[in-house]
C-alpha cells in the first residue's frame, strides 16, 4: 500500500459519487451498471477537450505514459469543474498490476490529487490482482459474475457495431442500435438478474437486431486496431482513430476487452506452468479461466450459427497463435497478447493493422515494435503501421502514416 492512501469507507458508499474514466463506452457503462446494482453510485466521465492533457501535464511527470496523463487530466478536469462536491466523490480506476509502470497509476493519481489540494479524495483501484483494502468497496462473487456478462455483452455490441457502421444506410444507425441495446441490457440485468440461458437468448436478439440493420452490400477494406489498452480503445487517447479509419473507407476490427481479462488470468496460469508459482490457487484460477472460456465459446458459437457476422477467435486459439513468436511468460503491459492479437487478426483475414502505443511505452518496445519484424517475416502479406500517441505528437504525421497503411491496404 503506497502513501497518500485514503480509505473508501462504508459511510462513503451511501452518498459518494464514484467517478471512473470512460475508456470503452459500451463495456464500461454495462460494468458501471453492475456496480450500481451493488449500491455504488458510479459515473463515467464524459469530459474531453485540450484542458485534459494540459492538466495531466501540470500534475504529473511529463515523461509519464500518455494514458496516465490523460486519466489524471480527466479526473482533475472533472473535479475542478465545480460540477461535483469534492467532499462527496471518490475515484475508481481499473488497473492491471505487474511489472509495467502502469501499475503505478493509482499512486500517480493520488500524488496528483495531493498536489491539487484534493488529497482527501479516496481512490479505488479495481484490479484482477486483488484489491487494496477499502472497507466500503467490496465486490461479491455474484457481482464479478455479472461483470463477466457485462463485458461479453459489451464486446458483442462493440463488435457488431463496428461491423455494421461502415455499411449502414442510415448514418449513425449502428451506434444508436448498440446504445439502445446497451440500455436495454442494463435494465434487463437489474430486472431479471442473469442466467446463462437468458444471456444466450439476449445475444441472439442482439444478433438479429443488427442483422436487420439496412446495410450496403459492398465490402470495405478491413483494418484492425491493436495496442496498449488505453490508447487502443479510448478516442481521447488515440485522437478518435476508429472514426478516422471509418471516414477513410475502412471497416474497423478491434479485439474486445474480454480477451484482455482472459490474458490477465492466463498469466497466472502460465506462471504456474513456467515456474510452478501459485500452486495453491492454480486449480481455482484454472477453473475460473475455463468457465470464462466456455462463456466466450458460447457467444462465438452463436455468432457463427447466426452466420451474418465475423466472430472473434476463441481465446484458446489466441493463446496458440503466439507459438514461435513470443513466450507466454512475457506478461507486462499487453505482453504476448499484443502480437497474439495481430496474428489473430491476420489469421481471420484482417491483414491491415494499426498498432497503437503511448510514446515511449516500455512493454511495447518489445511486444509491439519488437514483434513486427518476426510477424512480417512469416506473414509477408500483413500490413502493420505503428503509431505513437502523446500529448504533443503531431496529428498530421499520425494521419499521414495511417494513410500510407491504407494506401497499401489489401
Amino acid at each position, binding site marked *: 500500500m*503506497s502513501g497518500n492512501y485514503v480509505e473508501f469507507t462504508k459511510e462513503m458508499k451511501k452518498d459518494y459519487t464514484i467517478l471512473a474514466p470512460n475508456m470503452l463506452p459500451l463495456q464500461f457503462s454495462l460494468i458501471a451498471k453492475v456496480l450500481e446494482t451493488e449500491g455504488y453510485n458510479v459515473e463515467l466521465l464524459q469530459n474531453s477537450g*485540450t484542458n485534459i492533457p494540459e492538466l495531466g*501535464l501540470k*500534475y504529473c*511527470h*511529463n*515523461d*509519464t505514459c500518455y494514458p496516465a496523463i490523460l486519466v489524471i487530466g480527466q479526473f482533475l478536469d472533472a473535479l475542478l469543474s465545480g460540477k461535483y462536491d469534492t467532499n462527496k466523490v471518490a475515484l475508481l480506476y481499473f488497473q492491471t498490476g*505487474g*511489472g509495467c*509502470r502502469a*501499475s*503505478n497509476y493509482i499512486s*500517480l493519481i*493520488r*500524488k496528483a490529487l*495531493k*498536489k*491539487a489540494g484534493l488529497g482527501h479524495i479516496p481512490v479505488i483501484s479495481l484490479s484482477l490482482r486483488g484489491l487494496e483494502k477499502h472497507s466500503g468497496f467490496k465486490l461479491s462473487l455474484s457481482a464479478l459474475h455479472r461483470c463477466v456478462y457485462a463485458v461479453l455483452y459489451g464486446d458483442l455490441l462493440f463488435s457488431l457495431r463496428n461491423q455494421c457502421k461502415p455499411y449502414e444506410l442510415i448514418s449513425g444507425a449502428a451506434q444508436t442500435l448498440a446504445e439502445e441495446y446497451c440500455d436495454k441490457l442494463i435494465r434487463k440485468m437489474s430486472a431479471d438478474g442473469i442466467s446463462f440461458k437468458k444471456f444466450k437468448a439476449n445475444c441472439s436478439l442482439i444478433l438479429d437486431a443488427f442483422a436487420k440493420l439496412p446495410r450496403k452490400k459492398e465490402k470495405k477494406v478491413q483494418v484492425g486496431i491493436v495496442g496498449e489498452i488505453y490508447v487502443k480503445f479510448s478516442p481521447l487517447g488515440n485522437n478518435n482513430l476508429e472514426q478516422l479509419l471509418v471516414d477513410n473507407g475502412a471497416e474497423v476490427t478491434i479485439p474486445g476487452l474480454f480477451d484482455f481479462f482472459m490474458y490477465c488470468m492466463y498469466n497466472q496460469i502460465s506462471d504456474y506452468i*513456467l*515456474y510452478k*508459482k501459485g500452486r495453491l490457487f492454480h486449480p481455482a484460477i484454472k477453473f475460473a479461466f475455463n468457465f470464462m472460456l466456455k462463456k466466450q465459446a458460447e457467444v462465438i458459437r452463436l455468432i457463427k450459427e447466426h452466420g451474418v457476422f465475423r466472430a472473434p477467435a476463441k481465446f484458446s486459439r489466441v493463446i496458440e497463435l503466439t507459438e514461435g513468436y*513470443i*513466450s507466454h*511468460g*512475457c*506478461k*507486462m503491459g499487453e505482453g504476448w497478447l499484443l502480437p497474439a492479437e495481430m496474428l489473430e487478426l491476420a489469421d481471420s483475414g484482417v491483414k491491415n493493422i494499426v498498432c497503437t502505443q503511448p*510514446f*515511449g*511505452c*516500455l*512493454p*511495447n*518496445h*518489445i*511486444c*509491439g*515494435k*519488437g*514483434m513486427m*519484424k518476426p510477424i512480417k517475416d512469416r506473414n*509477408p*502479406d500483413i500490413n502493420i503501421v505503428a503509431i*505513437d500517441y*502523446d*500529448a*504533443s*505528437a*503531431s496529428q*498530421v*504525421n*499520425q*494521419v*499521414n502514416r495511417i*494513410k*500510407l497503411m*491504407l*494506401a*497499401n491496404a489489401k
Partner: protein
Amino acid sequence: MDVKTEYLLGIDIGSTTAKAVLIKNRAVVYEKYARHFSKVREKCCELIKEIGNIIGDSPMSIAISGSAGLGLAESAEVAFIQEVFATGEVVRYMEPDTSCVIELGGEDAKIIFFDGGIDERMNGSCAGGTGAFIDQMATLLDVDPDTLDRLSLDYKRIYPIASRCGVFAKTDIQPLLNQGARKEDVAASIYQAVVNQTIAGLAQGRRIEGKVLFLGGPLYYCEGLRRRFIETLKIPANNAVFPAYARFAVAMGTAIYAEKNGTVLTGEQLLSRINLAPENTVSQNRLPPLFADPKEYREFKSRHSGSDVKRCDAEAYRGNAYLGIDCGSTTTKLVLINEDKEILYSYYASNKGNPVEVVKDELKKIYALGGNRIKICGSAATGYGEELIKNAFGVDIGVVETIAHYTAAKYFMPGVDFILDIGGQDIKCFRIRNGAIDSIMLNEACSSGCGSFLETFAKSLGFDIEEFATRGIFAHNPVNLGSRCTVFMNSSVKQSQKEGAAVEDISAGLSISVVKNALYKVIRASSPDELGENIVVQGGTFYNDAVLRAFEKELGKNVVRPSIAGLMGAFGAALCAMRVKDSSLIKTEELNNFTHQAKSAVCRGCTNNCHLTVNTFGNGKRYISGNRCEKGLGEEFSGKPLANLYRFKRGLLASLPEGDGTVGTIGLPLALGMYELLPLWHGIFQSLGFKTVVSSPSTRRIYEKGQFSIPSDTACYPAKIMHGHIEELIEKTVDAIFYPCLTNNVNENSGNNHYNCPVVAYYSELLNGNMDLKDRTKFLYPYLDINNPSQLAKGIGKCLEGVFGKFSSRALNKAVKRGIKQYKEHMKLIRLEGERSLIEARENGSRIIVLAGRPYHVDPEINHGIDTLINSLGLAVVSEDSICHLTDMPVQLGVLNQWTYHSRLYRSAKFAVENKDVQLVQLVSFGCGVDAITTDEVCSILENGGKYYTQLKIDEITNLGAVKIRLRSLLGALDEKEGE
C-alpha cells in the same frame, strides 16, 4: 475516369516545400520546387497560375500528395495519394528494376524495398535525420545549407554525432565547436549522422543492396550527403542512382497516379476550388492573449522599468573597478563595475566558437577605455568556460554559476525566494531558503525550450528574434503548442500554420511553451505558491516581453526582471570579485603578446578515451579540458585514488575467469541485467563444466555493430547496446548465448514486489525477433525464476538440453547452489567496499556521493565516465547497492515500490538524508519510463529531508561540461549552506 486529358498534374506539398510536375505525352512540360514557408494555399495557387500561363484552360487530371497536401486535397475535393505510394508509382514507371528507394524530405525519411513484395517504411514520430535536421544544424554552424554541403566535401575525420533528434545533436556539436573542431569535419559528421539514422532507424536489419534510388530535396542538393550514403552503404557506383528528378519524384508519381484516378479540372477551376475550400476550422486549441489591451502593456512596461541598475560613465570614472566574466556555452558576457556597484562597461554576444578570442578583444577594449584612471582590483569568471578563461587570463577567482546568479539576484531583490534563469541553451532554477540555495533544478538534454529554440523558430519563419518577439506581444489567439521537445514543437508549429495561425499567434504560443516547459518540466511546479513570493527572472530569453508576460500570467504573480537580465552571471561574478585583494589579472603588455592555440587530442590513459583539448597560451601556460580525471593532464598522479564503487564493481565483474570448461562455451552479453547477475550465471555455468565468455566492455563501436537491428529507437541506450554485445559474442564463436527473461529480479524483501522493468525483463524476446539469430548462433533465453533454486535448476536444465544434452538434476542443483553462493558473495563484497569507502572518506574528510542508478550504469559507455569525473572533484563515489543495506525503507512512499533496482534508490535516498556528509546524484537513462516515476519520488525523499536533488540524464551522448556544472553547483550550494 471518363474524360481523357492530355495533361497530368501532380502537386506534392511536404512539410517545407511545394513541388509541382505537369506531364503531357509522357514528357514533363513544367516542374517547380519552392519553399512554401507554411503558406500552403498561396504557394499552391502561385504554381497553378504559372501552369495556367503555359497551358491556358486545358483540362488536367490532378492529384495532390504530401503531408501538408492532405488537408488541402480534402477540403478542395481533389484526389489524394499518400507520398510513399506516389514514390512507388514513379519508380515502377521510371526505374522498374530498382531494389530500394531512399527518400529524405523535410521532416520525413522513407525507405521502400521493392524486392520480394513492396515494403515501405517511414520514420517514427521522434526521428531527426531529415531535411529540417540538416537546416537546424547548418544554423548551429552559422552557415547556410549550401555552405554546409561545400564544407563537408573537405572533411578529414568524422565525429560521432547523435542524429536521433536535433536537441541531442546540438549537445554533441556545441562542445566540438567550442573545442575548435574543424567545421568541415563537423559538417561531414552531421551528414554521417543522417546516414546512420536512416539506415539504423528505417532499414532495421534489412540489407540495402541492388539498385538504389536516392530521392528527395536534401539528397538532390547535398553532394556531401550523397557521398556519405554511397561510402557507408558500399554500393557500386552504377547501382547508386541519383536521378535528375529526385526532388520531383513524389510529384511525378502523383501525376502518374492522376492519369487514372485524378480529378479533372482546368487551372481556373482548381484555383477557385482551392479558394472556395473551407479553411480547416480554426482549431479550438487557442489561448487567451498576453495583453488585453495596449494599456495593460504600458503598465507592464513601466512596472518592469523599475528594476534597473545604475550605470556610470567609464570615460569619466576614476578609481577601483571589478570585472566579472561569464563564459557560457554559446555566449560570453562581461561586466565591469565600480565600488558603488554601478556598471562601467558591459558586453554580451555570441562567443563565435572561441570564447578566448572574445575575452581577449574585450579586455583590450576595457584597458584602452580605462587608461590609467580605472584600476581593476578584482576579477572573477563563471560559466562553462570558467577554468579556461581563468587559466588564460589569470582571472582571480572562479565562481560557481549558481552562486554568481544568486549574488546578482540578491542585489535586485534582497529577499529573493526563487530565481529562474532561461538562457540560450539551458534553464536554471534555484529556490532560496534562509539565505541559502535550497534546491537547484536544471533542464535536461531533452527539454530545451530555451532561447536558442525561439531564435531558431524566428529564423525559420523569416524574422529576427526581436521582431518575432514583438509580434507575439499583441497576438489575439496565441496557439497552444504544448510543452514537449523541440522536435514535437516543430511539427505542432507547422500544423498550426496549416490551420492558418498568424505569425503573431505562433510567436506568443512559443513564448508560452517556453514558460510552460520551464514551469512544468523543469521546476515541476503545480501551483505558483511553490515558487515563493519574491521571484527574479533573468537570462537573455527574458528580454523577450512575451516570455516575461507569459510567465507572469501562467504564475498569476508579478516578478522582477532586472534590466540586465542577460548579464546576471557576469554581474554576480563582478560582485564576487569585490572580495579579491590583490588581482593577478593579465596586464596590458602581456595581453598584447597574448596568443592562444587549441589542439585536440585523445587521452589513452584508460578506456574512457577522453577527447582532450590542449590549450597553450603565449606565456607558456597550458590548460587541458575535456578530461574526466587527472591522468589526461600529463601530471604524475600522486596519492591513493578516491573510493569509487563503480570502478570497484567493474573490477569484480572483470575478475570472473573464463575457466577451461570442456562441455561447451556459453556467451554472456555484458549489458542490462547481466551487470547484476553475471556472478550467478557465471557460477552456474562454470559448475556445469562450461567455459564462459563474457562480451567486452561496451564501447561506441560495439553499439554501432548492433545498431542495425534495433526496432524501437526510443528504448533506452542500455538496452539498445545489447544488440552490439550479442554481435560481439557471435564473432567470438561461442556455442550458445545466454540471456534469460526474468520477470522478477532478486527478492531483497524491501518492497511490495521485486520486478524487473519490462525492458530488462523481456529484451531477449526482442533480440530473438529482430537479430536473425537462428542461423548464426544458439540463443538461449529461458523464462526463469531466480528466487526459487529448484525451479531455476530445472529451467536451466531444460534450456540447455536441446543444445548440450541432458544434465543430471544433481549437477544442476549443485550448479545453482554455487551460482547463488557466488552472487551473494559478490554482493557482500560490494557492501563491504561500500562501508569501507564511507569510513575512508570520513577519515579523509571528503564528501561522499551516492551515484544512484541501475547496475548497468556502471558501464563506462553508458555513464560516460561520470564516476571518474566526480572523483576528480575530490568526492568519493559509492553505488546505490553498496550502501542501501545501511538503512531501511522510508516509511511512506508515494509510489508503488515494486522493482528491485528502484527500491534500492529509495533506500539510498533515505541513507543520504540520514547522513550529513552524503549526497545523492541520480543517473537516469533517457527513455527510461520507470524513472519518470522514481525521479519524483527520490527527489521528494531528499528534499523533505533537507537535501539537494541532482539528476544527470544520460544517453548515447552526454555533455560532460553540463554535468560538471551541475555537480559544481551542488558543491557550491553545499559550501555556502555549510558556511552559513
